[in-house]
């Protein structure tokens, strides 16, 4: 029995397409956790990155913080928080957010720093407000890099959101965890394939978003 066979039999089994353990439900759950985590991480990472990048201060502190956060083992954090706070959404969200904030924060900061100084100088010289300089001069130019940071954070979240299953929540991790427990490799492979597909779909979404949101005048690197 090869992997391809597992994949086809998993997806052709009609039972996998409906009910509370069906693919649509699990996919939706997985997507919800991921979007929530990404949203929270962006809510923290974007403003901090934009503002520190704009003023050019605090870069070293940010990098230090980000490196420290990256060193935290996601699974360890999950277990720790479960022990402290019990089961629920919190132990899943915290590690995912901790995982996603550094790439968003650091790339946003770097993206803002990489904006050429002369348009900013010109904007300031023509009397543009500081907030407008940030949002209308720097952000549009930094956008491709910032979207890149969000994209890698999203991919990391999607592949890591499988941990939700360990704390009795749903998502695509369910298939993997249950499959391993039941020695049902068809399920394991099916779940993993779904996670990979979701990650690919995310890449496509970000590609489309960049095409739509980034001005054609901004040469992408």
């Amino acid at each position: 029995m090869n992997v391809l066979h597992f994949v086809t039999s998993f997806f052709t089994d009609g039972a996998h397409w409906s009910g509370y353990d069906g693919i649509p439900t699990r996919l939706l759950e997985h997507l919800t956790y991921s979007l929530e985590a990404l949203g929270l991480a962006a809510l923290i990472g974007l403003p901090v990155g934009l503002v520190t990048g704009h003023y050019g201060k605090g870069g070293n502190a940010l990098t230090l913080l980000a490196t420290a956060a990256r060193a935290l083992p996601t699974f360890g954090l999950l277990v720790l928080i479960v022990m402290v706070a019990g089961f629920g959404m919190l132990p899943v969200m915290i590690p995912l957010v901790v995982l996603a904030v550094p790439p968003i924060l650091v790339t946003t900061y770097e993206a803002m720093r990489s904006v050429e100084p002369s348009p900013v100088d010109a904007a300031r010289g023509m009397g543009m407000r500081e907030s407008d300089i940030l949002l209308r001069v720097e952000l549009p130019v930094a956008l491709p890099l910032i979207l890149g940071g969000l994209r890698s954070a999203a991919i990391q979240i999607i592949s890591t959101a499988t941990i939700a299953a360990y704390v009795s929540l749903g998502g695509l991790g369910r298939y993997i965890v249950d499959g391993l427990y039941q020695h049902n490799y068809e399920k394991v492979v099916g779940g993993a394939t779904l996670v990979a597909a979701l990650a690919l779909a995310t890449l496509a979404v970000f590609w489309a978003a960049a095409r739509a949101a980034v001005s054609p005048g901004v040469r992408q690197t």
Partner: protein
Amino acid sequence: MSGLDSPGNGLNPTVPPVESGRKSQTRRVFGVLIRIDSVTKRYPDGTVAVDRLSLDIPDGSITVLVGPSGCGKTTTLRMINRMVEPSEGTILIDGVDSRQQPVNTLRRSMGYVIQNAGLFQHRTVVDNIATVPRMLGWSKDKSRARARELMERVGLDASFAKRYPYQLSGGQQQRVGVARALAADPPVLLMDEPFSAVDPVVRKGLQDELLRIQEELGKTIVFVTHDIDEAVKLGTMVAVLRTGGRLAQFAPPAELLSDPADEFVEDFLGADRGIRRLSFFSSAGLELLTAPIVAIDATAEQLAARGATEAPYLLVTGLDGRPLGWSEPGGLTAGQIDAGQLLPYGRPFTAGQDSLRAALDCAVLSPTGWAVAVDAEGRAAGVVSQAAIGEAIRGAHAHAHAAGPEAAQKATTR
């Protein structure tokens, strides 16, 4: 100029008609618009970039700040729009301390142009130019219409409107930068080495364009450069700064060239300041000889009559009156003049319009030592010898000396 106190006044939505060039001529009795009063700038690291500088920048003209690298030109310019705050001293705009109004209001009343244009790469050319009008709350359509007018004003074809900055050459980008600075019709324009990153030919075009725009719109322009030729060409007044941010001399360019204040200024002006000064004397006073000019279809009698002129050579012109070249009088046979056999006549100067410098240059370049003068249509108007030009130069110097340096007017074309 009360437009600065309430910038709304100065923001005329329509470009003043080109005829207003005449108006700016009559405004040549300048008032002081910007008064830099004993200003010092000490940067936090202790560098004194500008040292007790006092400068009265006249209204409606171009004032150039020039000097070696690091002498504080940029710092001085940026103190005018408060991009840099002076450590000591005050800057008065139209008699009012520049710190009296909100900094962004002040900046919006002054166009600002920098070296590499600093265009917004995510915005099209029209939207770049429309930035300040949009900031001032104009509608999108009105701002864009205004931007298109400005494109024409700075010599940019309308087809560039929808392009992005990366699709423009350096010179075109700089034109967009100037248009953007002019968009809300501010009374003051601050320019920091705006043309230093383009090649000499493009630079000359941009300089001519700036002089034309200034003529048409009568803006008060403060222009920073490290190029003395550019300073002399553009400046109504030129301030030479020395390293350490002190003023070495503040004078009209002709006076700068004739009476440098000290050795530093003299060195900075370079070795050929005498020749350059000739730019300020018109060629109108030159006595042009027409006797040595013959048409290519001249008859034998005409050629014989020309043989006795005081010029050792004859200038042959085409049937349209344009010069073709020089020949010795004996070398011409009626009906058989071969344009290919003539000596080249070099570059002619336009009589009355070009300066003595251009006339002298022609004479020096001409293989016969005689300069060819042409009229506005390019037809030969006369010829003049090096000796006659030398005479005119001595006469002009004597005249300028007697009348005082202020009397030395710029020739229209330099």
